[in-house]
């Protein structure tokens, strides 16, 4: 856990500036690692937000939620409906997604937070699975079931009609005339990410964040000092759910389609993986984890046997085949296997994730200097 020190204001400003620069110049440095296309960068930003929000709950309070996918899905559906009913402008979509996911988080959180530990994890999981099953079955009029919710040309779009905004060409989110596709889509997500990061930073540094950390370290003692942990827990659960809702809305904004599979519990699992891999309870860690997972998912799942053969071409024939046989199960469709092994190793050997690794490394270098 990063030291929570309310007085480190100047350092935070520097962090914010550095963060903003890094995010906004992503298309430039993305070129170095072959990630300079908007589709992937968007995913970095969206899942980064999702993980930052999840980490606010799990990292600060230690409450492990296995149901955050529900809020992601709710955000997606809300944004899609905002596109259908109000306007193709992403602003109302974001606002309504935040409100609605916050509302659902309040209800689910109120019930789930009555329990702790494993019970809390299972309760959130139960709620998420319930939402998923409902979205697939009885809520089909709202969610369009298996097909997924699409934005159609003859949807009412009240605001757009009133203002006389015509959508020409493909139906895409349009920020006052700027189509939310390609790099403009990425920059919209990037701005949201920076805002989200800023809020997370403020939460980390605030007395509120201190109280959340107190809940994690010793809830009973906190109660004895006269604080009731419940309102704080509920507040951070709602905030965390709203991050997930925002991420869901952004998914729809850059690609107007919302499906129930976003609510499946594997998605909740994915955000847990990202957060742990990056570093639980750190500010940058979850974002790093999200970017790494999405980056390698992109690279690894694209590798097939012929790519492998080409890679190991320099080896003698027998050895080349041997290497291909060894590596093949871990790439392409086997990417999840790699991910699972990586995840397990992180938990076993480095529970603090990549951020802990970086800290060990800097400590080691510093000691070497002395």
């Amino acid at each position, binding site marked *: 856990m990063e030291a929570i020190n309310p007085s480190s204001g100047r350092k935070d400003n520097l962090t914010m500036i550095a963060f903003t620069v890094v995010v906004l110049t992503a298309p430039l440095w993305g070129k170095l690692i072959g990630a300079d296309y908007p589709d992937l960068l968007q995913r970095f930003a969206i899942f980064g937000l999702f993980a930052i929000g999840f980490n606010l709950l799990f990292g600060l309070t230690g409450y492990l939620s296995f149901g955050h996918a529900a809020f992601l899905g709710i955000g997606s559906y809300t944004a899609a409906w905002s596109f259908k009913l109000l306007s193709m402008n992403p602003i109302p979509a974001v606002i309504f997604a935040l409100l609605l996911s916050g509302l659902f988080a309040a209800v689910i959180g109120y019930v789930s937070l009555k329990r702790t530990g494993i019970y809390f994890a299972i309760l959130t999981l139960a709620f998420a699975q319930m939402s998923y*099953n409902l979205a697939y079955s009885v809520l089909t009029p709202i969610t369009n079931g298996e097909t997924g919710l699409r934005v159609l040309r003859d949807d009412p779009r009240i605001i757009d009609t009133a203002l006389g905004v015509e959508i020409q060409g493909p139906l895409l989110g349009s920020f006052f005339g700027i189509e939310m596709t390609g790099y403009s889509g990425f920059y919209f997500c990037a701005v949201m990410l920076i805002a989200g990061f800023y809020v997370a930073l403020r939460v980390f540094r605030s007395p509120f964040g201190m109280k959340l950390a107190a809940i994690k370290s010793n809830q009973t003692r906190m109660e004895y000092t006269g604080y009731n942990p419940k309102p704080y827990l509920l507040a951070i659960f709602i905030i965390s759910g709203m991050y997930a809702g925002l991420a869901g809305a952004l998914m729809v904004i850059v690609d107007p389609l919302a499906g129930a599979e976003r609510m499946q519990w594997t998605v909740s*699992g994915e955000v847990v993986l990202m957060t742990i891999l990056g570093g639980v309870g750190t500010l940058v860690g979850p974002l790093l984890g999200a970017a790494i997972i999405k980056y390698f998912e992109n690279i690894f799942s694209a590798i097939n046997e012929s790519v492998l053969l080409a890679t190991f071409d320099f080896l003698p024939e027998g050895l080349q085949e041997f290497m291909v046989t060894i590596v093949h199960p871990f790439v392409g469709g086997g990417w999840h296997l790699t991910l699972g092994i990586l995840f397990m190793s992180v938990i076993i050997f480095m529970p603090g994730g990549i951020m802990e690794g970086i800290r060990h490394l800097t400590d080691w270098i510093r000691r070497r200097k002395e």
Partner: protein
Amino acid sequence: MDAILIQILNGLDKGGAYALIALGLTLVFGTLGVVNFAHGALFMLGAFVSVTVQNILTISKKVKDESITFFDAYKETPYLEIWWGDTGTMIIDYAVPISIFVAIPVMLLIGLAMERGLIRFFYKRGDADQILVTFGLAIVIQEIVKANYGANPIPTPAPEIVAGSAPVGSWLGLGADLVYPWWRLIYLFFAITIISTVFAFLHYTTFGMVVRAGMHDRETVGLLGINIERRFTIVFGLAAVVAGLAGTMYTPILPPDYHMGMDFLVLSFVVVVVGGMGSLAGAVAAGFLLGILQSFASMNEVKSVLPAIDQIIIYLVAVIVLLVRPKGLMGKD
């Protein structure tokens, strides 16, 4: 009346699977204090034991098909049929029951290896770490199975002789049109047998007594000079066997695929929580109860009043139970 009986029966076989998985989960939680998210993967591995046994029994070679005389036709014939004729065919037909005998040692070994190789390093770590590492393990096991057996469900039929339905109705004097698949009936009795065996083992053997004492107060048992760790390791192996057998026998009901474990795990957790974490009897009772509830909820009459209730009933019950009786139906405080 018939409708109600058939729904109860329908619920009982699924409930049997829930109960068996939940029993293993509870055993592990009660003894080792570990929340095992990889338990569903053990269920799935058990199912794939019967797939493997079936694959081995049907290793074939191409034999000239004598019935076609116009041209040279070849068909795959299992070696067992070539060697032993009809006896071989019968052995292949009984692939699923035979797998039980393979599944017991295999699952025991897997369970022991899992506990010694991974789980034991997590006794001192928090709940969250235990959940996460076993969750990771579940992903790994699942992906390995997917890489070896493909992503599609693999049909593993029950023996021919029990392929049909049992005339449950005429047994009970309720009319001949009330029938129920033989295999599901067998599964139910199988589940009850396994559950009784586990309970008998825990209650009537010295080993079981020590384990129960250890569940109650691990430290004191340790102070009496009993190596409780080793016994708990065996309990983990036992839980793996129970989960594996539940999976092996379930294959004729549901053709196994690599993610069946996860599907069952989520529900089994709910079952464990409803029954009361750490209460063996509670897990079994809740397993059957929720199985039956789910089956009633999927009746058309119920669904027309409460749409989609069958999809969410288990979760709904779990939420209500956790709020009203936080320790579960039979949990102790």
